[in-house]
Each structure stands twice: as C-alpha cells, then as structure tokens.
C-alpha cells in the first residue's frame, strides 16, 4: 500500500487524468489497451502514453508488473489507489495546505461550516 505522503504533490495533466480514469475503469491494462481507450478523446501518440505512465509510476500513482506475451515483454499497469482513495488524498492535501496557511482561523471555519 502506498503511503499517504507519497501520493500526488501536484495536480495532474489532462493526459495523466485520462490515463488514471482508463485504469480505474478497466483495472489492469497494457499501454496499448490504455492508448486505444483514450485516443479518441485525447489525441496523442502511444509513446506519449508510455512516457506518461512511466512518470506516474515514478510518482507512485500506478504500479506495474512485467509480463512476457506473444509480442515480447510488456508492462501491466494498475492504479495504487482506488478512485475514492485518490480523491480523499487530494482533498486531505488541500485541507492540510489551508490549515497550514491559515492555522486556527481555518480550523474554526471548518468547525462552524461542517458541524453536524
């Protein structure tokens, strides 16, 4: 399981978002499958998808395993977090940043606004 601290530190590019969406929908996928899925809405080259997936892997947003198939070696990618966990971690980061910047005022604001 990926540590909360390792998760996204910055917003995603449109291609990164499209790739993650495709992975959340399809589960484990190869570069070619992801490319086929996103190419109509996000016109790009297959190599751009490969490079972007490599970057997402470096940022620990996706995991990968190597498989040997008919076409030779390839990666099978999957996301490290579910879509819900990912959204939560983004929200948590945003809230943490606000609290860090505004301190007590932010905490009391959240208390008033969201008190049940």
């Amino acid at each position, binding site marked *: 399981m990926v540590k909360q601290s390792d998760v996204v530190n910055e917003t995603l590019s449109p291609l990164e978002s499209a790739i993650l969406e495709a992975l959340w929908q399809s589960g484990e996928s*190869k*570069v070619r499958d992801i490319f086929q899925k996103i190419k109509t809405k996000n016109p790009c080259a297959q190599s751009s998808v*490969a*490079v972007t997936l490599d970057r997402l*892997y470096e940022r620990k947003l996706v995991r990968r395993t*190597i498989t040997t198939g008919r076409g*030779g070696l390839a990666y099978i990618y999957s996301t490290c977090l579910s879509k819900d966990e990912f959204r939560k971690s983004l929200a948590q980061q945003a809230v943490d940043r606000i609290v860090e910047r505004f301190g007590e005022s932010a905490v009391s604001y959240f208390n008033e606004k969201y008190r049940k």
Partner: protein
Amino acid sequence: MWGMLAHLGSALDLFLADSTKTTLVVAAIVSAVTLIWLSRNLDFSAKIRSAFMYAHVALLLFPPVFFATTLSCKQVGLCEVGLTQTLLFVIPITLILGLAFGLLIVPLLHRLRSQPESGKWQRFVNGQSDRLGLHKAPDVFIVDSGRPEAFSTGGLKPAMFISIGMLEVLTRRQIEAVLLHELGHIQEGSHALKPITWLLRALYPEPVLAPAAIVAEEERKADAFAASVQKTDVHLNRAKRKMAE
C-alpha cells in the same frame, strides 16, 4: 613507507588548510552527489543519465587530481604558481581522465542496471553480427523503463540496451531497425565520439571542429546501415518518429 605516508598526510593538511581549495573540493563532491540524486529522482532519458554519469566520474576525480597537482607543483618548486593557473591545468586533466574512466565505467553501470535478454532480440543481433562477420555479437540488455529508448555502448564488450517502453510501442520490424541502427554504431566504433564531443565542447567553447556535425554524420551512417540491411528506411524512420513523440 611510513615516512612517505606522513609526508602525504602533512601535504594534505596543508592543502585542506587553504579555504579556497577546500571550498572547490567540497563543491565538486556536493555536485557529484547532487548529480546522483537528480538522476535517481527525476525523470531523465538514458542519454542524459549517461552524460550525468560521465560528469559524476569527472567531479569525483577532481579532488585527487587537484591535490596531486598541488603536491607535484610543490615538489618541482613551482609553489608560486597561482590558483587560476593550477586550475587551468587541473580542469582539462580532470575532464580527460573523466572521459577515459567514464568510457570504462559507464557501460558497466548500464549493464548493472539492466537485465540480459536471451530471447529473439539477442538471436536477431547474433544473426546480423554473424552476417557482418563481427568478432563477437553485442549483448542485448533490457532496461526496466516505460520510456521508449535504445542506446548502445562500445569497448571490449559492446552492448545494446532497449527499454520495455520501446518494445511496447514499436512493431517487430521497427525494433529490428533500431537494433540495426545500434549495430551500425558498434560496427563503426563511434561510441567514444559523443563523450569526446562533450569534452571538446567543454574545453573549447568555440571549437575548430563542429562536434554536432560529427555526431550527426555518425547517426546518418548508422541510419544508412540499418536501411541497407532492411532495404528500406521506412521502419527506422517510423520508429524514430514514434520514439520522439
């Protein structure tokens, strides 16, 4: 023996007592460590990482070369030679030694970071090497990277490196074209050329030779070799376009 070590020790003390020299040595070591951190933590292509490795080797060689030069200067009675003059001697020597050591070490580091390929791509390279009458077929290695890239190293044991990312995005004929292009480089023995052109660029800001033109000519020869074997340049051009996208 002990006397010699004591002499070296006192010379080192004297060397480190000079704050400018110590600062330069520390700066070189910090830069070398920073380069390692950068190449491990940021997303760079294999070619940039290779350039970092050469720079890393040169930066690590700087302190001993600097010390040895200062020491020998003292031995021959040229102690009055200023720091600038010493550096004018030390920097080119360090770069030349960095290149020489780099040519030995960098291929080894690439091998350590990759997995040997013993399947169809190695068989393809073996077959083509036999056809060309090469003394020994280069080893093919797989680089664990999703970024499509390929490169080769020369020396006594030439090797080719192809990434999994490249295998994923290219067709069989395109991969063969890339392997033939790299085989062309190995056949021409042009591996030392790139680091030498970097060195020339570092030593002569306005070089008499045009390093970029020399490298471009070597690339053209490797392309021509691949096209002559495949009897078409379509696959290589498509592969290059895909890898550059």
